[in-house]
């Protein structure tokens, strides 16, 4: 098992950890969402990369096509991408509302505002 | 009506009564009439069960299966019969007394008071007739919760803190100690039904395990006020006096010692416990409670507090007697439940009468009060003599049986405790009697008479009952002896 033969997994791990780090380390709400998206993207890679077989083709039932790459992960990941997009859209919508309510999208400023005031009813 | 029907009636009547009392809240006379009627109906139902039980029948009522193998059910046996008789009979008297007290002191929230009383009696009947540990536990906890509004009746800071102590000790002991003990019995024996001879007999428990389980039960039944879990009882004195009378004579404390005796007889079995070294701590702890509580009573100037600690002490008489694990001592314990109930309720009635008439709460303020309230103080004296153990009052009979049992077992510690505590009882009761009758009232003391007539009627009635009990003792005595498996004497 060499690095080269499993480089897709390494990329997955790097993206996963980078995404998680951004979520934790950044106080700006939009940046958190960016981190979340990067994290979710790593999962796509995790699914799709193993689906491809060396020398594999699309599943065509005909003469000469014997090794198929697995199409199922593609389908699954299309669904996951949609979920990710919906999450991102929802997250951004909440950020817009937060901006309207607090005037800021920095987490520490928002928490400070909550600590000082009671919060709008 | 069939015995099964009578069991159902004795549970449903106080429950239904509480609803009707709540509805009649706006018309005080109607409401009080409903209370009295409910109490009378309950007593009639309970009395109806007595002949059958004395003849050897054990009426049963199965309600539903709560958990697989665990039923909510009732079964009347002699000890429960005795307890139910005492409770339901004294409720009538207590209700008469309450009418006088609550109106005489212009207490607020009277409807809530009478409703909770009725619910408390329903829970007491449930405890008395419970066929198994889970049913007992259900009604035991219900009694704690239903008496909480009674204890915190006045709603002030004192009531709140007294209520916290009350609930803390009672719920604490029952949830942390009693419940695991019950579940352990289920896990070990596969049943929690009360069985003559003990349901744990043949379960193969080692002596150490028996001792440990016994400890969980004895301390878990916090209503028996075994030290150090007795503090709830003096804390509950913040309640109005009819509640204290109920707590100390009728329902709560008697439920505690009833449960203690029932567990010893029907869960462990006295034969199984007799001679088990690991159970030897129980007479010692009970004996210590008897003496320590008596000493605290001696040093208490507040009358209700003195009576509270006297109750702690007297309850441990019952536990001590039961802890001798002899048939005669079990019978003595059962009889003392009845004797102490009648005597103690008289004392509390008197304390409440004194408060209502003169607003005095301390023993040191009672000089010469016997001249102003002769009936009340006469009743107090009779009841005090009964609790000290002077014949022919009721307390003598049960104490004599305890002495006999302790002597026959050669239990020196028990004998010493009984003797010493008799002296201590005299020491903290007789001075009150002396001061009331043989000292002059303080100079400038405002004149007052007896308390309102329902109070006086109630207190005289129970004092008379204390005197009369030995002459009408066949039924209680027979029930007590039947509990222990003894025949007629």
């Amino acid at each position, binding site marked *: 098992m060499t690095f080269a033969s499993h480089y897709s997994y390494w990329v997955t791990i790097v993206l996963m950890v980078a995404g*998680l780090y951004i*979520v934790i380390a950044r106080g700006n*709400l939009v940046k*958190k969402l960016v981190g*979340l998206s990067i*994290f*979710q993207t790593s*999962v796509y890679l*995790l*699914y799709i990369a*193993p689906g491809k077989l060396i020398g594999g083709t699309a599943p065509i039932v005909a003469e000469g096509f014997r090794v198929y790459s697995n199409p199922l*992960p593609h389908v*699954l990941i299309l*669904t*996951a991408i949609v*979920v990710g997009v*919906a*999450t991102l859209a*929802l*997250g951004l919508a*909440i*950020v817009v*509302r*937060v901006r309207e*309510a*607090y005037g800021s999208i920095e987490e520490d400023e*928002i*928490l400070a505002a*909550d600590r000082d005031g009671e*919060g*709008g*009813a | 009506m069939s015995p099964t029907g009578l069991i159902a009636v004795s549970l449903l009547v106080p429950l239904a009564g509480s609803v009707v009392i709540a509805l009649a809240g706006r018309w005080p006379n109607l409401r009080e009439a409903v209370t009295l009627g409910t109490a009378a109906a309950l007593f009639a139902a309970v009395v109806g069960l007595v002949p059958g039980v004395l003849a050897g029948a054990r009426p049963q009522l199965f309600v*539903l*299966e*709560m*958990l*697989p193998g665990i039923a*909510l059910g009732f079964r009347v046996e002699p000890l429960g019969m005795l307890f139910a008789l005492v409770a339901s009979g004294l409720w009538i008297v207590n209700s008469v007394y309450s009418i006088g007290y609550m109106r005489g002191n212009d207490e607020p929230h009277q409807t809530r008071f009478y409703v909770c009383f009725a619910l408390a009696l329903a829970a007491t009947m449930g405890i008395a007739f419970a066929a198994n540990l*889970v049913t007992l*536990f*259900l009604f035991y*906890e*219900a009694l704690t*919760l239903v008496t909480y509004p009674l204890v*915190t009746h006045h*709603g002030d800071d004192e*009531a*709140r803190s007294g*209520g*916290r102590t009350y*609930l803390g000790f009672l*719920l*604490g002991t029952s*949830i*942390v100690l009693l*419940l*695991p003990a019950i*579940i*352990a019995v289920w*896990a070990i024996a596969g049943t929690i039904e009360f069985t003559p001879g003990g349901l744990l007999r043949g379960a193969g428990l080692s002596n150490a395990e028996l001792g440990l389980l016994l400890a969980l039960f004895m301390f878990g039944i916090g209503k028996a006020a075994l030290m150090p879990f007795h503090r709830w009882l003096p804390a509950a004195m913040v309640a109005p006096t009819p509640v204290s009378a109920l707590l100390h004579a009728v329902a709560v404390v008697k439920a505690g010692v009833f449960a203690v005796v029932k567990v010893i007889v029907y869960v462990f079995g006295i034969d199984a416990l007799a001679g088990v070294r690991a159970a030897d701590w129980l007479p010692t702890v009970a004996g210590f409670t008897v003496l320590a509580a008596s000493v605290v009573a001696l040093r208490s100037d507040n009358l209700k507090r003195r009576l509270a600690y006297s109750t702690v002490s007297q309850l441990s008489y019952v536990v001590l007697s039961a802890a001798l694990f002899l048939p005669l001592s079990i019978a003595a314990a059962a009889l003392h439940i009845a004797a102490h109930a009648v005597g103690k309720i008289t004392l509390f009635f008197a304390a409440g009468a004194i408060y209502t008439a003169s607003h005095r709460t301390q023993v040191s303020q009672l000089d010469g009060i016997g001249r102003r309230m002769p009936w009340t103080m006469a009743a107090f004296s009779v009841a005090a003599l009964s609790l000290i153990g002077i014949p022919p009052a009721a307390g003598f009979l049960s104490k004599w049986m305890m002495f006999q049992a302790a002597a026959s077992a050669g239990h020196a510690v028990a004998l010493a405790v009984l003797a010493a505590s008799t002296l201590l009882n005299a020491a903290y009761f007789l001075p009150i009697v002396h001061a009331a009758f043989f000292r002059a009232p303080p100079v400038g003391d405002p004149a007052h008479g007896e308390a309102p007539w329902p109070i006086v009627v109630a207190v005289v009635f129970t004092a008379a009952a204390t005197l009369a009990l030995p002459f009408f003792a066949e039924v209680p005595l027979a029930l007590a002896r039947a509990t222990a498996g003894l025949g007629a004497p």
Partner: protein
Amino acid sequence: MTLAHLPALVVVVPLITAPVTLILRRPAAAWALATGACAFSFIAALLLVAEVAAHGTISYHMGSWAPPWGIEYRVDILNAFVLVLVSAVAAVAMPYAWRSVAAELPRDQVYLFYTMYCLCVAGLLGMTITGDAFNLFVFMEIASLSSYVLIALGRDRRALLAAFQYLILGTIGATFFVIGVGLLYLITGTLNLADMATRLVSVQGSRPELAALAFITVGVSLKLALFPLHLWLPNAYAYAPSVVTAFLAATATKVSVYVLLRFYFSIFGVQLVGGMLPMPEVLLGLSLIAIVTASLVALWQTDLKRLLAYSSVAQIGYITLGLSMVSRDGLTASVVHLFNHGITKGALFLLVGGIALRAGRPGFERLRGLGRSMPVTSLGIVIAGLSLIGVPGTAGFISKWYLVLGAIELGRWWLAAFVVATSLIAVAYVWRFVEAAYLSEPGGQTPAPGEPPPIMLIPAWLMVAACVYFGFDTSFSVGTARDAAALMLGVSP
């Protein structure tokens, strides 16, 4: 309508109702449709549980594609039980929502609320009933996304940040879950749960399997708010609209517990999870910490809703404690407490929502003297509170009974003592309410006398009555839980 398609319909009906309410726009119409959908799902769930109890596991093939290639909906006694809980709470909350939502949301958003509510119900029901791992993920995300929206609809602006925090944590959790599913797919080549279970036997103990187990555990634990992954819960419950809190508290975490149970016992198997791995010990430790710390934190809260939220974290600790015992009685305790806590917390939050309607935020200063101004509501809170403590005669007692029994049977006396001792903390925080409501003089902020309208009070009291009913007649709750426990452990019932 044939019985055969019920497994699909129980999910599809709320799912289709959502876009229809979106189009209809009128609040009354939206509410009516949503109520109809939830009622239908409830009846369907009852029929399904009766069917499973009589004839055993139901296997439904979506679109008539045979598993393991097609998606299968598989109803056994465990998820039928959870279906009943979720649909019951959803249905009971609907009459309540009519007034509560109208009071807490701007009128032009009400129909959107019902859209999201239907989606959430559909998502939770789908998570419960599906027999396909990826399908589970999809429904998990449907439920989660709609619940983020529902929480964000709260009146207080802090609801927005609470929803955002839940979004971040929840998405991480779901993503961890899907990573675990991906690893399982890589090893077994199938997504069908039953098929996966058989194929995992040959690779038991291999590193990808253990990694998958770890990812799935962490992912689901985020959703079920197991300590220390519970941080989103108090804020989310405290600031969401009252109906949302009641519904989510009663269902969302419970469905996540179901997912954990399903994966641990039906798929990975009790030998791996209970025997080879230290899962019971880890769960035990986390549960103990959750129970103690959350109960203690609850004790110090100034707001009743937050108090109940922390209490929920503690109660979830009891559920996972039963899980960690991996015994017949322990798992029975876990499943039955899933149900009992659901109805108890549902009742409590519905009643607290009634207070919120009359008084605004239910801080303890506003609760003083509530016993006199809102006697029916206060009594309901006391009774449900007794169920939370575990007083006999309530549903909570049944759960405590089995937890202590499970501990004693394993010989862990200290654990039995722990369970009962921590109940005393619950006594303390329930009694805070009792003292405030009944033993305190009304302050300036106590609401004027008057109960919430009957349409809100009746559903709440229905759940309170259920708390008492299931404390006496346990044939459904305990019977089903015992069968489910037997099924999971692979022993005969």
